């Protein structure tokens, strides 16, 4: 299929943007760079998350599990293998785990899948703890590298770009179409000949592998890897929240959520360290009520309104299938 012009434009703009962002460490360091690392981290994870959860409407809380697997891939082998090899291990481990989970959860739908994936991170965390307790001797593993924040930032930026390009390619492929069909109606998907199981598993593996890589890249920043931190369920929740905030109907949706969320959260915790929780709670509620459709949803409604005024299209009564 030939690529529509506007998509090419978007792609070009995206790559150009990424190139600009790559210069960030040259102009700032310290706190802003640290914050950017966090933003980039969640940009990568949330987009990877939405690759799967967006079109399938299956909310995965397994991000922490993949992240932890990636972190541990590095922590375990850091002394024996070079870093690029560790990234590779993370990819394989993440994809493998996702495949297993994918196969196990084929029959699960809706909230059952949500909780299953939530349990997964906990389970892995516990198993790692137990193994460390009984065979490892210490619970924490040191990861000492010479990476600076700048290196982490660049790696995460590269990862984000790769995730985006992958997402774009998937959207243009049979796989992407299959996913959208599944998201709309799984029974229909099966009956038009979509191998729903395979599609889901492949995509979950891709998404999981990316998140694992993000975990691997972050391991040097943690310095000292413990299961509590690596498999922290909060990671999973934050990912979902940010992605939903942005909206998952577009590839760039999660990104739109990540940036303001991270910045606002940071602002709050920086300025009101003792009221963080209360203010964050209120801010959150406000967001839910003011931006019911996520930021992208809001943007799209705006655009749609403009367009429909322009071309005086009749208002559709379409209810977006979620």
């Amino acid at each position: 299929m030939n690529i529509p012009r506007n998509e090419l434009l978007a792609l070009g703009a995206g790559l150009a943007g990424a190139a600009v962002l790559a210069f960030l460490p040259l102009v700032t360091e310290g706190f802003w760079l640290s914050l950017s690392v966090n933003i980039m981290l969640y940009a990568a994870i949330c987009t990877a998350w939405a690759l799967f959860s967006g079109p399938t409407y299956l909310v995965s809380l397994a991000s922490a599990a993949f992240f932890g697997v990636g972190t541990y891939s590095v922590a375990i082998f850091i002394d024996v293998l070079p870093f690029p090899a560790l990234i590779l291990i993370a990819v394989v481990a993440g994809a493998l785990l996702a495949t297993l989970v994918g196969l196990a959860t084929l029959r699960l739908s809706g909230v059952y899948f949500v909780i299953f994936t939530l349990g997964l991170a906990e389970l892995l965390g516990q198993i790692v703890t137990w193994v460390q307790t009984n065979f490892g001797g210490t619970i924490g593993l040191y990861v000492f590298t010479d990476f600076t924040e700048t290196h982490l930032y660049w790696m995460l930026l590269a990862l984000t770009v790769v995730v985006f390009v992958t997402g774009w390619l998937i959207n243009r492929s049979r796989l992407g179409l299959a996913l959208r069909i599944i998201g709309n109606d799984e029974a229909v998907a099966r009956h038009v000949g979509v191998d729903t199981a395979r599609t889901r598993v492949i995509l979950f593996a891709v998404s999981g592998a990316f998140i694992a890589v993000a975990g691997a890249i972050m391991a040097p920043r943690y310095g000292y890897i413990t299961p509590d931190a690596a498999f922290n369920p909060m990671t999973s929740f934050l990912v979902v929240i940010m992605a939903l905030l942005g909206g998952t109907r577009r590839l760039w949706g999660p990104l739109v959520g990540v940036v303001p969320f991270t910045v606002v959260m940071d602002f709050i915790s920086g300025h009101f360290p003792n009221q963080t929780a209360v203010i964050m709670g209120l801010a959150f509620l406000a967001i839910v009520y003011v931006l019911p459709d996520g930021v992208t949803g809001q943007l799209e409604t705006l655009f749609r309104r403009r367009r429909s005024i322009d071309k005086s299209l009749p208002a559709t009564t379409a209810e977006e299938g979620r």
Partner: protein
Amino acid sequence: QDPVRIGVSASKTGPLAGGASGVLWPNIKLWAEKVNKAGGLKVGDQMRPIEIVEYDDKSSPEEAVKNIQRLATQDQVDLIIPPYSTGLNLATAPLIAKYGYPQVVSTGNANDLDQFVKRWPNTFWLLGPAQGIADGIVGTLKDLRDAGKIGNRVAVVNVSDAFGLEMIKTGKPALKQAGFDIVYETSYPLGNQDVAPVIASAKAANPDAFIAYSYPPDTFALTEQAQLQKLDVKAFFVSVGGNLDGYGKRFGAAANGVLIMGGVNASDPVFQAYRKEHLAVTGQEADWWASPVAYASLEILQQAVEHVGSLDKQALNKEIQSGTFKTVIGDIHFENNINNNNWTVGQWSDGVVHGVRATGNIQGAQPPVLKPAWPSN
């Protein structure tokens, strides 16, 4: 006067908040208030007020790292008070080192500190290596056994988190080396308060002594279950949590004779005065081990600045490495960045904890007594 800005990033929420709120935060408050009341921090010939810049690390390393960055590069604070817990101290060490701040750790310790200190010579470890603390109880038990007061059978359990594992790692070999017979041994997950099976199994092994390298919620739960199930041993040891004043209040007479990790010299008037102040200023009781240590870490910072006469980080590091400091827990002098004079075991007696064992040259230890049977209620 230009205030001295002192940054602190520690847990206000998340799993570590319980510990930090009990031990670290109140002492920062107490210290800041005291210093400012006395006219401020003496920097050279100026008395400058201190201003605390505080952030919540949400118990997560990611957040902790970011906070340290913010403190160092945005707020450009003069000093940093390091986070609560071993894990977060280890995670933030590289960054604190990068900016050159002294990191006087009062609430964390590990076994391989020697190596760590070599890598980051700006870190100082008030509690000493984990080994000292973990082995203290073994020494106490050994003394009791050698005096023929208790038998050889020990049950030992630990919480499986960073702290518990560091402890068991040296505690268990020490027990073996001392010739104890470990009749029951297990670990349980952090946060688990349903420890009835643990106590039941320990009891079934019929031990003479019970050691728990435990954390606050499970410390309480283990004690309650031991009392309920009448796990009557001659020595009953719990770790973090046993030192809380609330422990004594919660168990009352039943706490009598319970051995805890760490301790204080309860009869030292300096400590008694500190306790009073702590209550008056923060509205909450100091505990019987970690609070004074946390407070001492702040006194060390303060005195280092006074001794050096400036806020030059390098000079401060040097001073802390070599100087001697007068604190609520006595005179502190670091050897290779590690403080080797620590209370390791204390014992409850009528609502008060008396230190019964210490490392180094600490004075005032009282002889341990055998634990009476749990009172029936």
